[in-house]
């Protein structure tokens, strides 16, 4: 999988050169990256490996989050292909567990205990259930998500894979790739799918 990303990134290189705005920007970026590489120290679970860009990050960083369409399609497809589906084939879990998970913003910082379970961080950026008024607005409102879209198998697949890897649908999305980086397990993602799509979930009442 990682090899695919690297390959796609290399294949994209000629396009990239054409889209770089000004040479000066590239120089400053190179200097910024060199600076970042020397200026951090590992702490807790946050190691220095976190400073390196993977293929998607590198392309988004170099194009102001607007890569050319041809590359975008290839890399999005690659991200989608990396989604691991639950063994039992079921995509809707327990919306009550999903709500709890959506509330928690913990996880992955140097001051958090390493390992699962970490929070879904969902309310940090999205309006979801009607009762929670302390929601963020970095992402779109998800209130009434399932009511508007139904919960067909296709919709369940979309929501599962979107949470698993948001970059499969919008390469430079601001949303983390929760499944891909193993912040959330398939079971946890199923619970979040239920939170959004289950007709019994308060999201859809």
């Amino acid at each position, binding site marked *: 999988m990682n090899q695919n990303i690297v390959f796609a990134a290399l294949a994209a290189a000629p396009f990239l050169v054409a889209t770089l705005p000004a040479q000066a920007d590239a120089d400053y970026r190179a200097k910024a990256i060199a600076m970042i590489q020397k200026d951090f120290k*590992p702490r807790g679970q946050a190691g220095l490996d976190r400073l390196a860009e993977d293929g998607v990050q590198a392309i988004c960083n170099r194009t102001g989050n607007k890569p050319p369409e041809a590359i975008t399609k290839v890399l999005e497809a690659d991200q989608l292909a990396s989604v691991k589906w639950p063994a039992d084939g079921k995509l809707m879990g327990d919306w009550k567990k999903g709500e709890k998970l959506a509330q928690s913003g913990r996880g992955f910082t140097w001051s958090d205990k390493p390992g699962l379970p970490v929070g879904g961080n969902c309310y940090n950026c999205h309006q979801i259930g009607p009762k929670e008024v302390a929601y963020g607005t970095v992402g779109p409102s998800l209130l009434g998500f399932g009511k508007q879209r139904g919960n067909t198998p296709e919709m369940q697949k979309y929501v599962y894979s979107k949470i698993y890897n948001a970059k499969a649908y919008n390469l430079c999305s601001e949303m983390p790739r929760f499944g891909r980086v193993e912040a959330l397990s398939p079971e946890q993602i199923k619970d979040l799918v239920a939170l959004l799509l289950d007709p019994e979930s308060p999201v859809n009442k």
Partner: protein
Amino acid sequence: MKTLRTLGALCAFAVAGSLGAQTTDEIDHAKAAKEFEKFRAEMEDSNPAELNELKGEELWKAKRGPKNVSLAQSCDLGLGIGKLEGAYVQMPRYFQDADAVMDAERRIVWCMVEKQGFKFEDIAKKPFQSANDASAPDITNLVMYVAGHSRGKPFAVNLQDPKVREIYEIGKEVAHYRAGPYDFACSTCHGSDGKRIRMQDLPNINSKEGATKAVMGWPAWRMTGGVALTLQWRMNDCFRQQRFPEPKYVSDTVTALLTYLTANANGVIYKGPGIKR
């Protein structure tokens, strides 16, 4: 001081309580934020950080360190040795003697090491106050004192200086650099107007207004934990939330970021050490 802490806790409660009864309207959020801001501003009239400024003054004037000299007699913050008026709002700036662009905290640390003979490792061991600490580190008190002498003066980072300009441009790249497990850059949360995380408004650091929100009132006395903290700490905690490893103390990367933020706020009047949530 204790009264102030209690007040802070009570206010946080009041804001949260009133929100519970409200609808999810954006207008209501704005109202609550405004109420909180009003209270915060009132508290600034008797800011506990004044104590830090006073301690900083003693430290600035005292002969200290292995070389037994005072910073007042040896430290040049860009306007001449011992000159404080307006120095804070003109940093980060380029210092020839160190051949580096430095923000205020980095410059004071440099003076403590080069002029007074302190060891950098000793200062960097614990540069920020934690909630359990009885007092702030010397360096924080010194930054408070220096910053206090720029009260009422406009931010004026000199982007005409090519060395400063270059660091500014690098800082802009740092602000947009996405990496780590969550693909976050500073600009993921602080790159557009009118967004928030939970109830917390997110300033857009690329705009003058947003950058002003980011640097105004720092160094600050923080209600959470009742501690005195600097912009160096603020950047450190941003990287934590970005899920990055920890920046080394007073590093080039943090300087670059502070150059970008402060210069974006150029022209805005600095109100001095403030109070933060």
